């Protein structure tokens, strides 16, 4: 409010005072109108976001197109599976945990079932371990395809989404051919898996992975060289490495900030220690680096079912900075590679965790 100066005219008539009041009110209105344009705008994003199952809300303060503050509001779809687990048997819980991340349901079963097996003193036979590894990789690839496609959508690029979703469906078909479920396989048992791989799975997987690889190249061309995409991601949303680690950022997100941590190599589970793959990182730490760190993901190779879980060609041309190639340990020059997303398993293992405490043979005590 601006003060006009009624006090400066000591003896004014009532009419004058009324006029002054009107003028003052008018001036105040004018100022308010001007001030509306300057402050930051608060924008509510969500909680109904069409592309996500996990409903999430952000209250964002915007200064023009710049995000100056964001307050995340979460818990809209908290399923309380920790509590539900208290009244279920182990086998009935795999179907709960594979809903933690809908896009990579299979990966979510792994930390839980491995915890159960460790507590029961069981170890799944090698073939089951390989099947688990292959399905985990497929689930990671499918979730990565969703990410890559919808990442473009968030910036207004619709085309990549159609490509990636089409091929993701093929990956889900593979998962379905083994488990019977696209999203929620519920395929793990304490001590093994429900079934063997179906006939023809290896060939079909190889074919699909070739196609996934091709589509990744296409999407890369469509997105990563695009000026608008670069403008909107380069240097945006920086996560400094130390800060990210302190806040438990894991998977591709933290590798995009220069970390080379990968739980599959650092704390190998299933048969990852027998597999040869790269850990790809990028020290830029911005939004441009994240898809790169996700996509140029390592290859894993399963000896009896070579390349079934992976795509076949090296990632030739993902945009990479000189620093990121410096960060690549044990770079393979030939052999299978994959592009796949990681955060499901990685974050389950490293971040959210599926710690299980048990004291009975039948039910978990705390999940």
């Amino acid at each position, binding site marked *: 409010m601006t003060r006009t100066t009624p006090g400066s005219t000591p003896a004014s008539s009532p009419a004058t005072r009324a006029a002054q009041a009107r003028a003052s009110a008018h001036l105040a209105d004018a100022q308010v109108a001007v001030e509306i344009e300057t402050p930051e705008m608060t924008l509510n994003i969500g909680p109904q976001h069409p592309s996500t199952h996990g409903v999430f809300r952000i209250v964002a303060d915007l200064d023009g197109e710049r995000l100056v503050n964001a307050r995340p509001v979460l818990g809209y779809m*908290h399923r309380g599976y920790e*509590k539900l687990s208290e*009244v279920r048997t182990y086998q*009935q819980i795999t179907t709960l945990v594979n809903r933690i991340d809908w896009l990579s349901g299979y990966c979510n079963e792994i930390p839980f079932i491995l915890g159960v097996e460790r507590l029961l003193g069981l170890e799944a036979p090698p073939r089951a371990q390989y099947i688990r590894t292959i399905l985990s990789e497929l689930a990671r690839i499918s979730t990565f395809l969703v990410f890559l496609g919808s990442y473009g959508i968030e910036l207004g690029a619709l085309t990549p989404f159609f490509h990636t979703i089409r091929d993701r469906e093929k990956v889900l078909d593979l998962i379905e051919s083994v488990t019977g479920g696209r999203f929620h396989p519920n395929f793990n048992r304490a001590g093994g898996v429900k079934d063997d791989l179906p006939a023809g799975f290896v060939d079909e997987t190889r074919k699909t992975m070739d196609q996934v690889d091709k589509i990744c190249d296409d999407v890369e061309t469509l997105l990563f060289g695009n000026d608008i995409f670069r403008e909107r991601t380069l240097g945006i949303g920086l996560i400094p490495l130390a800060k990210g*680690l*302190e806040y438990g950022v894991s998977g591709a997100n933290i590798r995009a900030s220069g970390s080379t941590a990968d739980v599959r190599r650092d704390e190998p589970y299933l048969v990852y220690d027998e597999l040869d793959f790269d850990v790809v990182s990028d020290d830029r730490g911005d939004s441009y680096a994240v898809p790169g760190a996700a996509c140029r993901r390592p290859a894993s190779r399963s000896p009896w079912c070579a390349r079934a879980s992976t795509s076949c060609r090296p990632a030739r041309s993902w945009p990479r900075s000189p620093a990121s190639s410096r960060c690549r340990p044990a770079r393979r020059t030939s052999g299978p590679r994959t592009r796949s997303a990681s955060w499901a398993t990685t974050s389950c293992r*490293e971040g959210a965790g599926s710690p299980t405490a048990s004291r009975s*043979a039948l039910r978990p*005590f705390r999940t």
Partner: protein
Amino acid sequence: MSPLGLAPDQITRAYREAMGDQVVSTSTAFGQAGVTVRPDAWVDAVTFARDSLACDFFAWLSAVDWVPSSDQKPDQKGDQKGAAKPSGDDSGDDDESAYREPDGECLQVVCRVSSTSENHAVAIKAELDKADARIDTLVGVYGGANWHEREAMEMFGLEVVGHPEPERIYLPDEFEGHPLRKSFKLASREVKPWPGDVDVEDMPDDAPVIDPNAPKPDAVNTGGAS
């Protein structure tokens, strides 16, 4: 584990040497280093992991509501008593490597941190009295503890002293109770029996008795107190 990192028993030994009788017990069960400290040494123990063990990654923090167990066989109980030696006793790995539950009722706070450079990890625990479950905040040590502590506060009724924003994160404001306490009954099971219950076969006669204090489907279904 990587050859670079400290082995679990090296980590527990480092804790015993550095913190002395502040360490209540240590464990290397399942190949994981676990250190239980006195509640008042909680922040010091986590700071030690960060500063002396190069643990830069904050994985998670949560709690476990331990209730008395009765499903251990007598000989197991004997073993457990043997394992629960007084603090400061670093008599070797035999005791450490055995899985051991906290003695009696307590609210156990657990925090896991790991080192991305050295590739080792440690779970730091503190056992709190349920009636007066309070612990100092870790937000000053790892900023990422903020949300985890908020979750533990509302889910377990933990009081985190010095938390910068002790607001609820998941539960609605009007929600009463702390859902992850064992004493909290699952309301939907009070209303409608869980159909999955029929899938559960009876346990053989010689099977260990399931913990009668843990919520069971049948007990909860009928709304009965157990």
